[in-house]
């Protein structure tokens, strides 16, 4: 049994690494999100012989093709199918990680992660704390596709991130596109904490952008301002960023300047970046696909009210999924669409 010494070693390497922006020297190609995930997993397996990928149907490439070609390249012992049992997958991953490995577990849909909830909440999240740091399963990363896909109904559409945000000891990360997905996933895999990494499945094939081919990472717990503005701050994550960006463009045509922030890491989240933006704009809108009640938007709202109550010019707006199970034919009504966001932007700015 060994500790996660690899992480410490990697950390040392990083301290000797030049910090630079992506525009500098890396060659990149336009690829979609699942290919970016595939690249990240390939690099994770390549750079650490003690890393493993497992889950339902991952050996042939996974139902979303994220693990395509990896079993052929790294062998069936490092990329392997598991029985159809989510609590088994995560429970197995915790044990594997606790022995000093990087355990990259795939849950086929976030909708099916709940059998593993006990393992994630009671084992993974508390493993280090309860042992007084004698043991840890920091090498565990649980990947799961989440969110709407246009035809997924109740059980192929949910966004369960808020459940996991309520658990000290876990990190929750959601990328908005291919480039982010690769860099954030590599950070998650190499982070010494158990992490739940939700992938926006609607964007697996839909989102295409230039992605550096090299090994790179984005820092966790750092939000990114992806559009600067002065009238209102918009905060979101994952696939919802695309919808919010369109709303920003439409708002601009009506003379409203929106600042858009991708939270990227939901826990522990970057309060400072959001607070600084809200202090500048005086207004905040949070949007997510998950139902509004108890969603992570509520946490952001409460925190920002605590931090900059006197700077707020209007109540914080939340444009979220409805408090219903995710519906099939009613999906367009359920979703926090561009027009709902635009209406909320205008209502907030004109409050």
């Amino acid at each position, binding site marked *: 049994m060994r500790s996660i010494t690899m992480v410490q070693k990697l950390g040392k390497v990083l301290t*000797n690494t030049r910090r630079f922006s992506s525009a500098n020297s890396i060659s990149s190609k336009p690829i979609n999100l699942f290919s970016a995930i595939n690249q990240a997993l390939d690099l994770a397996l390549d750079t650490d012989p003690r890393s493993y990928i497992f889950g339902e149907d991952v050996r042939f490439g996974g139902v979303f093709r994220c693990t395509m070609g990896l079993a052929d390249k790294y062998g069936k012992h490092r990329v392997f199918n598991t029985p159809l049992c989510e*609590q088994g997958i995560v429970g197995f991953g915790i044990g594997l990680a606790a022995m000093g490995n990087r355990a990259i577990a795939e849950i086929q849909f976030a909708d099916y992660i709940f059998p593993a909830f006990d393992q994630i909440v009671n084992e993974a999240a508390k493993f280090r704390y309860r042992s007084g740091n004698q043991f840890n399963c920091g090498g565990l990363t649980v990947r799961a596709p989440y969110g709407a896909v246009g035809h997924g109904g109740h059980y192929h559409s949910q966004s369960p991130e808020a459940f996991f945000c309520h658990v000290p000891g876990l990190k929750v990360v959601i990328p908005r596109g291919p480039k982010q997905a690769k860099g954030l996933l590599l950070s998650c895999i*190499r982070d010494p904490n158990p992490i739940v990494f939700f992938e926006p499945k609607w964007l697996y094939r839909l989102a295409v952008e230039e992605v550096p081919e090299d090994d790179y990472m984005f820092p966790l717990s750092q939000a990114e301002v992806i559009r600067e503005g002065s009238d209102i701050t918009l905060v979101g994550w994952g696939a919802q960023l695309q919808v919010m960006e369109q709303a920003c463009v439409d708002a601009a045509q009506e003379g409203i300047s929106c600042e858009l922030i991708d939270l990227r890491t939901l826990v522990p989240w970057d309060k400072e970046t959001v607070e600084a933006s809200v202090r500048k704009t005086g207004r905040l809108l949070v949007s997510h696909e998950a139902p509004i009640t108890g969603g992570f938007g509520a946490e952001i709202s409460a925190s920002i009210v605590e931090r900059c109550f006197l700077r707020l010019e209007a109540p914080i707006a939340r444009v979220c999924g409805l408090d219903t199970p995710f519906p099939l034919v009613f999906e367009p009504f359920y979703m926090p669409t561009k027009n709902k966001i635009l209406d909320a932007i205008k209502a907030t700015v004109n409050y």
Partner: protein
Amino acid sequence: MASLLSRFRAAHHLIRRLSERRAVPLNLNQNPTSNLLPLSSSPVPATFNGVWNQNSHSMSTETQGGLQHPDICTDQVLDFPGGPVLLTSEMSFISESARQRTSCYRVLDDDGLPVTDKSFQEVGKELALNMYSNMVTLQIMDTIFYEAQRQGRISFYLTSIGEEAINIASAAALTIHDVIFPQYREPGILLWRGFTLQEFANQCFGNKDDYGKGRQMPIHYGSRSLNYFTVSSTIATQIPNAVGAAYSLKMDNKQACTVTYFGDGATSEGDFHGALNFAAVTEVPVLFICRNNGWAISTPTSEQFRSDGVVVKGPAYGIRSIRVDGNDALAVYHAVSVAREMAIKESRPILIEALTYRVSHHSTSDDSTKYRPVEEIEHWRTVRDPTSRFRKWLDRNGWWTDKEESELRSEVRKKVLHAIQAAERQEKPSVADLFTDTMPAFPPPANDIGDGDAASTPQILC
């Protein structure tokens, strides 16, 4: 109409066959007075108590041979994923229970007499005395710590009384390199591996020397140096963890296995079933040791499952399994030794169901006389006590005297009392430990990142 008739005939035939099965004389218990173990309410009587099956004394590893089917149309084979399946024209349901309950491997009878002249894995004097003194130590520690809770000195306690043989004998059959994923009634493994009475006391008092930094209830021990993963209160969650850890041992070609312990109640949890299935499919060296002690708090095994205990669940997952008398230290030692060897050499999981009895209340928060007869508890506490049974065997070998017994008990008692007093005096952990060990930062802060070879190492982008 013809089809209906043939179905009727088939059903009639089936009923006749099942009736015949029921009519087969059962291997009845030769010692009915000892048949007090509350297993499941299977219609088939128990046969393990006090019965030595001459035909099953050896640790047969040849039980995985080809499946036998009577009345098979041998010329008709269904080519099916997982292997060819023979076809039969006879409709026959598999019975919900075997003709007789799975036998229980035993070496010593209740009087400490070997029940066979066949050789079993000999335990020499030194090892035997070490095992015995650990069993006694565990019993005394449990008794005094239990009283300490009753006096309000610690908040909670839970004893292993009645299960000392499973604790100590299984530990003795393992090596320190075997990785333990315990439930919570197995402190004897830690004791065997060298965890001191002071270390036990420190954890129970949650003082600054508690490795868990006072964060968990008493009895939630863990020791990295002793390869004993920290206890969590959740039932069965450790079982799939042990499978994943075993996969790591397999990939690293270690000559070691993982060993996970759990009770009969845990076998109802999904984690148990998932773990056994994962272990069989991934072919990993893990021992699943079920302490079937008859009771999950107040729920008897008859309300826990209808199978013949736990051992029969192993083959359903493709796992070699054995039932052993958990109150017979020699039987446990021998079974675990052989199971360990098979697990490591053949890279396979093994299920061991150890039949025992929870002599204690579930914990200090429980009064088990509310739901089970005092006579039953007393019977197991006295007649079937694993420690005295082992002592009788030591006596027969001339390895132990009353004087040594008295000295051992007196010495352990003093040590336990001293450990409690010292742990009680020790300070509580620093309040800073409330916040540590939650989320180590990674990667290092941006201002720590200096110049380096950017081409060959991961880059941090902004």
